């Protein structure tokens, strides 16, 4: 089927359409997306809405940014994505590139996009750890210290004792 998107028109099979049953925060009404790979923007790919041709988000493999990145899926994620085998899941992080200032680009490591390749279902989860605006360049070990402090603070205040 032909879809008009922010990045142009694409002919996609049903298997290439990823359904986000809850949309993503800020775009709760947008349910159908696809991942587009463009040679000219590699290694950045695109999470493109098939419901709103104004919406395209640059995404990247988070392990390219942080080698020891970890994603802990919640029970809710597993249910939304209908996960049977974790190897079916791909993880993407959304990039924010300020207009005209690409050197100030940040990666959202806190809320990765999870896609189940087998079921064609997707969601954006929110992790306890990690920064929502992790600098893409010039990241120093000094700011990683504040990173872990932030996640500890959240563990304390976000959940009750038994979670």
């Amino acid at each position, binding site marked *: 089927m032909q879809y008009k998107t922010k990045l142009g028109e694409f002919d996609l099979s049903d298997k290439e359409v990823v359904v986000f049953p809850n949309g993503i925060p800020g775009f709760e009404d947008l349910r159908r997306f696809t991942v587009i790979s*463009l040679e000219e*923007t590699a290694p950045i790919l695109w999470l493109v809405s098939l419901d709103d041709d104004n919406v395209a988000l640059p995404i990247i493999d988070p392990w390219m940014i942080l080698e020891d990145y970890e994603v802990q899926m919640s029970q809710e994620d597993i249910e939304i994505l209908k996960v049977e085998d974790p190897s079916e899941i791909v993880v993407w992080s*959304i990039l924010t590139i300020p207009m005209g200032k690409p050197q100030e680009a940040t990666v*959202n490591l806190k809320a990765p996009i999870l896609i189940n390749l087998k079921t064609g279902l997707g969601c954006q989860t*929110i992790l306890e750890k990690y920064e929502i*605006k992790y600098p893409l360049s010039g990241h120093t070990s000094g700011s990683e210290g504040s990173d872990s402090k932030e996640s500890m603070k959240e563990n304390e205040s*976000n959940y*009750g004792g*038994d979670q």
Partner: protein
Amino acid sequence: MLVLSRRIGESIIIGDDVEVKILKVDNGVVKLGIIAPAAVKIYRNEVYRTVAQQNISAVVKDAKDVENLKEVFRHVDKDR
């Protein structure tokens, strides 16, 4: 909106399986204990809103941004 008063140590039940207990009240800060099934997501409101705002600002406005991305990765290659 339902408004009710609770004392320290008291709780409310939401639905069948979510309990919210008042643990501590100190100088305008309320500490809550939440007992909920693992499948129930609990976020501070501002965390969800921050993610939503970040998603909105990540949307690429025009094709020029795409060209800028190459520059972004020149920085990354240099740093790593």
